[in-house]
């Protein structure tokens, strides 16, 4: 907060003593604490406690009936993370999340650049058309691809009409990739647009005046200045892609299990809560690492 310097200190009848000042700060501090109290209590109870519970559960044991036994603490669930099946799912999810992020970035950057360089009127209209899918129901948007990619869907029918084979993309990794890109593309566009829109374009002009060609001025000026948007957009796409559950559940098949649906199956089908908890923690850990790494890398280019 940088408030403009106002006239002067407010005039008070009593002289300002250190005690008075301290009392005022204390009262202010108490007031702030009280205002934040509902959120504090709610988040402590329904966020922090549940998070700690998952951590505790990840060291527990599953008994024969599928119930979790909360003693007999062990590291079995964490050991299981390093088995071949789990590592394979991890690698596949990570790869898919990275590819999704890369594709989103590749198409969103020129897209956001185009919108940001239009006239203000046109810019607002185009932006509204980006906002609509951003706010639209994710499940429904994913379902639309199930209709399109199905063996009787439009893509297959066009191929048949042209005398080709029916194309069946549904239940493959490609289908999941298309769904992820489709689902999270607006999450990439909006931060990129925000970064490009508030950029000072006179800097690009200055670069051109100094005989930089279009590509050089983009690489040396525009790209570094829009880096915060690239970092924010990539994180916003990468994190939900890595934990995706709805998309693989609707568009993926048996051979495309990703971390998200693997975790869900541990709770709703296999009833192995300790292992599911350990998996959740592992995913969070990877996300945290990736985010920190990406922030560092982004900050370096600034």
């Amino acid at each position, binding site marked *: 907060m940088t408030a403009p310097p106002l006239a002067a200190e407010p005039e008070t009848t009593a002289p300002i003593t250190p005690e008075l000042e301290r009392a005022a*700060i204390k009262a202010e501090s108490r007031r*702030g604490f009280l205002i934040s109290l509902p*959120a504090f209590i*709610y988040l402590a109870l329904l966020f922090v406690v549940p998070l700690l519970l998952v951590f505790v559960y990840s060291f527990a044991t599953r008994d024969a009936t599928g119930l979790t036994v909360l003693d007999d603490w062990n590291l079995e669930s964490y050991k299981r993370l390093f088995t071949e099946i789990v590592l394979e799912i991890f690698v596949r999810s990570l790869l898919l999340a990275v590819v999704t992020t890369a594709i989103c970035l590749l198409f969103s950057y020129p897209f956001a650049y*185009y919108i940001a360089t239009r006239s203000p009127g046109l810019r607002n209209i185009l932006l509204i058309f980006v906002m609509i899918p951003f706010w639209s129901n994710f499940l429904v948007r994913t379902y639309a691809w199930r209709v399109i990619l199905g063996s*009787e869907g439009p893509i297959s029918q066009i191929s048949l009409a042209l005398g080709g084979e029916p194309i069946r993309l549904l239940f493959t990794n490609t289908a999941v990739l298309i769904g992820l890109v489709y689902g999270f593309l607006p999450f990439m566009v909006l931060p990129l647009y925000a970064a490009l829109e508030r950029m000072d374009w006179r800097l690009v002009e200055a670069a051109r005046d100094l005989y930089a060609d279009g590509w050089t001025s983009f690489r040396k000026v525009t790209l570094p200045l829009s880096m915060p948007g690239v970092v924010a957009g990539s994180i916003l796409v990468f*994190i939900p892609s890595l934990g995706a559950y709805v998309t693989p559940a609707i568009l993926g098949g048996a051979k495309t299990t990703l971390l998200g649906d693997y*975790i869900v199956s541990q709770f709703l089908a296999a009833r192995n809560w300790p292992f599911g908890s350990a998996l959740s923690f592992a*995913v969070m850990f990877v996300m945290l690492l990736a985010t920190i790494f990406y922030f560092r890398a982004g900050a370096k280019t600034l």
Partner: protein
Amino acid sequence: MNEGTATARSTDRILGVNSWLVFLFLYAPIVLLMAFSFNDNSNVSIWTEPSFRWYGAMFQDTNVMNALRNSLIVAFFSTIVSTVIGTMLAIALERYRFRGRGALDGIAYLPIIIPDVTMAVMLLIFFFQVFGILDDLLGIQLRNGLGTITLSHIAFSISFVAVVVRARLSQLDNSLEEAAADLYASRWQAFRRVTLPLIAPGVAGGALLALTLSLDDVVVTQFVSGAGATTLPVYVFGLVRRGVTPLINAVSTLMLVASMVLVGISLGLQRGAEARGQKPADPDALLDDVAVD
């Protein structure tokens, strides 16, 4: 120089083509889905003639209507509670210095970053554990249902509301509140007459976001819902996993239209706020109001 403008023009053309392709990619599936919902044929892929047949079927389907009612009940309570708590959180974090502020600041953003699945797992275990303890100690038997769904939705919405309101607060000049205080407005009057009107667009934006999040959530709700008490997205999700039907197309179209109406409202509010923000004469009128009080 001519050569330069020529490359610039062709670059611009490539950018334009890319943009139209992205728009096509974003909209073709939605438009196609909507079109299919008006198909009379019960086989989704064969187009016969346009009709409202499936919309009629949808409104007569008691499962769909029950789920829709549940969704609206949950969204109503979750939006109100998370908007109030989230706004208070934003004000506390943006305007006050107090002990525990740093910790709260960190925790407040975690629900946004954490993936759905993890949040779902956390709340599933939490309710299971709490209900177990309540049963053991007090003999109270509680089950998952609309209550647990609402509590969970509030848990992930508070942070989103706080972020939106805080963004608005940080753009405001707090000298206006100080001026109100100098004019002998009580804390509550200053808040009611100065701060609240100024942050109203942010609060409304946050509330709309909370409403959308609640109406759209599948993963968390699926984990904390009980038998017979599901929301519309969870019910549709169950149907979708079994296959494509014209009924789902109709329900989906309804949900898409609802989202679009919400975007419209949200953009309208933003526009209104911008229009008002351009008139700096307003704060004077606001201060007069406080002085009269």
